[in-house]
């Protein structure tokens, strides 16, 4: 299979035939470190295409990925890759590649040597050709004979991806692949990943930034505090995250009359008047954004400060969990 170039395989292989085991399947998977539950009863299947694994830091994304890559034993449940357990099954690496989050790559190897090492350890019949192909795929040919120790973050990231791609795996797991990449490199990476997905590969990308998945992942899994909080199409998830009750605090020259004017607007759900200003709860962010300046002008109040109180990522996610 290694001689096969990265050219698109026959269309039949793009989508798996019915009855074949899905590329990755998690059945009621939990993982805990001592008393800390990192992943709590998560089930999903991945089969073809790009899937985004979204969640705040510490939500258990990496734990999930590592379990899929066979580097963590599920404390409960089953993690199956191509229908077989991922844990203690090195043979599954023939069809799986992992790009770990940690930046460290052997600094004493060149990019090419790193890819070559991966190819040789996979026992590919022509490791040199595979390594060069992988270097081309990630567009590192120009720098492939330089030591990885001297690479930039983005180049290192691409070298890691080349190492994971060298045996043309059907499943590619990427842990925070966009960290440290500039917009140009990010675009390049998007192209590459979309390209791979078009060939029927199953790709899972973990990230804590929703927008990174824009135009990339059709399917998004949201993980919060170890639980699968939501899953669905990117647009669906984004709508869920933006159109939700928001809370703002604002200070103005005339809090009381401003509060009264705002209360009249249908987008405002509740107002609390305190010594520090007013706290406004609204159901619709865009509507409120239009109402506020109008109300301020109508009452003649001067706005000093407008601040969303719960825009942190965690609160966005915890909202999703509460639903």
């Amino acid at each position: 299979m290694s001689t096969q170039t990265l050219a698109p395989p026959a269309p039949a292989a793009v989508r798996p035939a019915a009855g074949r085991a899905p590329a990755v399947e998690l059945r009621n998977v939990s993982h805990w470190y001592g008393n800390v539950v990192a992943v709590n009863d998560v089930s999903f299947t991945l089969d073809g295409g790009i899937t985004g694994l979204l969640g705040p830091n510490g939500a258990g994304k990496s734990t999930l990925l590592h379990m899929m890559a066979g580097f963590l034993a599920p404390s409960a449940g089953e993690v199956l890759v191509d229908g077989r357990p991922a844990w203690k099954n090195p043979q599954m690496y023939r069809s799986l590649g992992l790009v770990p989050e940690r930046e460290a790559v052997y600094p004493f190897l060149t990019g090419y040597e790193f890819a070559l090492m991966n190819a040789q350890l996979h026992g590919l019949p022509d490791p040199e050709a595979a390594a060069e192909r992988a270097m081309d795929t990630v567009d590192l040919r120009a720098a492939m004979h330089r030591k990885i120790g001297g690479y930039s973050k983005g180049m290192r990231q691409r070298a890691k991806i080349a190492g994971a791609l060298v045996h043309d795996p059907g499943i590619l797991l990427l842990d925070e692949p966009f960290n440290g990449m500039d917009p140009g490199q990010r675009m390049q990476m998007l192209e590459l990943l979309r390209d791979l997905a078009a060939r029927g590969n199953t790709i899972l990308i973990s990230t804590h930034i929703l927008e990174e998945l824009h135009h990339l992942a059709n399917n998004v899994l949201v993980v919060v505090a170890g639980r699968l909080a939501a899953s669905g199409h990117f647009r669906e998830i984004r709508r869920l995250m933006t159109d939700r009750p928001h809370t703002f605090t604002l200070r103005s020259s005339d809090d009381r009359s401003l509060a009264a004017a705002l209360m009249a607007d249908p987008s405002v759900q509740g107002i609390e008047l305190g010594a520090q200003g007013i706290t406004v709860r609204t159901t619709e962010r865009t509507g409120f954004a239009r109402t506020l300046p109008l109300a301020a002008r109508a009452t003649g109040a001067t706005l000093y400060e407008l601040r969303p109180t719960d825009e942190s990522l965690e609160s966005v996610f915890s909202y999703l969990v509460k639903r």
Partner: protein
Amino acid sequence: MRNSVEMTLAGLAFRQLTSSKRSLWAVALAALPILLSVLIRMKSKTPEAAVGEYVIYWQTLTVAVLLPIIALVVGTGIFGAEVEDGTLTYVLGKPVARWRMVVTRIVVAGLATAAVLVPATLISGFVALEGMGPEGLVPALAAALALGGFLYCALFVALSLATRRALVAGLAYVVIWEGLLAGSFGGIRALSVRYYTQAFANGLVSADVIGSPLEPGKAAVLAAVVAVLAALYATRRLRRFEIGEAVLRWPMGRRRRGRTRRVLPLLLFAADVAGSAALGAARLLPRRDADELGERAGFGAANVLARKSCERVGRGADPRARGGGFDVQEPFKLRVGQRRALLRLQSRRHHARLLPRRDADDLRQRAGARPADVFGRQVRERVGRGTVSRACGLKFRFETLVELGIRQHVFEVRGQVEIVRISMGHGCHPRPGG
């Protein structure tokens, strides 16, 4: 193709080693024996004395300190660095059996250790002895070091996968286990790489210049068992390798400390028993010799000697030896000047029996470390008179005889009555179950 996987693994491990600063320290350590050899050369008047000095430094410095330290640095670093920075996943995420990774790395670590110590030993041997001494002595010492290096590496590789504090644990093993405990417990000695290394050297040198308390054949078997167990354990750990594993707690947690203190003597006792049991198991092997006879007889060398004297004068073999299920075909060559001296030997047997076992053990152990001095001192202590002189570590002369623990030596004994010459050597061929 299979070969190329191993070569790739080895190449990576090797480049990992050479790129780390810790390994440079290991190479620097190797200069020590060479410096010492120059000192020995300058200090020693006769080549025989140089041989003795050289062997002693080989045992106390190279085997006891340099070998374990270098192997510790190399062995724990060969997986440790990659575990630390997480790059091990690039190696582990491959469809390659884990035992192949373990074996390749142990071999690379062993080769690296040998590459540091073998040249140092050869050079220092050449400088100190200039080709004198027993034939093949220096190459044998170097080869024993290489073997011991592999063993240490196997052990430390396993350790580095067992705990994040492999360096500390390894140091504890070397200093406490091999340095302190093995001196007092015969069983622990049988489970210590340092003594294996000495036994290997003993087996490889034709003349017995290294008094080793372990018999080479037995040591080889025990060493092989230790190496295999270490590799199996490392493989098991690697198969269950988890990323971001919670840092293993040192077993001496605050709450556990009290329990550890209570359990520690038990553990020591268990280790001693296990080592003795391992020795016992190894004893079932076909290779038999004088040392073993001594052990079988139960009380160490003195009894054997006494027994041999009985045999020589035709009074039959020691009943205990009979009970052990073997027969002595041709006893040690024991030439006794006069019958009265022989009687002395026999009476000494009873003295030796009165010694507590620990004492006899200790004597043998010390004889192992420094045959002549200790041996001589022991004689003085027991008898309270007479002088012992030692020449080149091969010959002993002393006024009267108490115990002889080292085989293949020639002793000259000046008894109260006559000069007695005893040579203990090969020629003992017991038959199992005879």
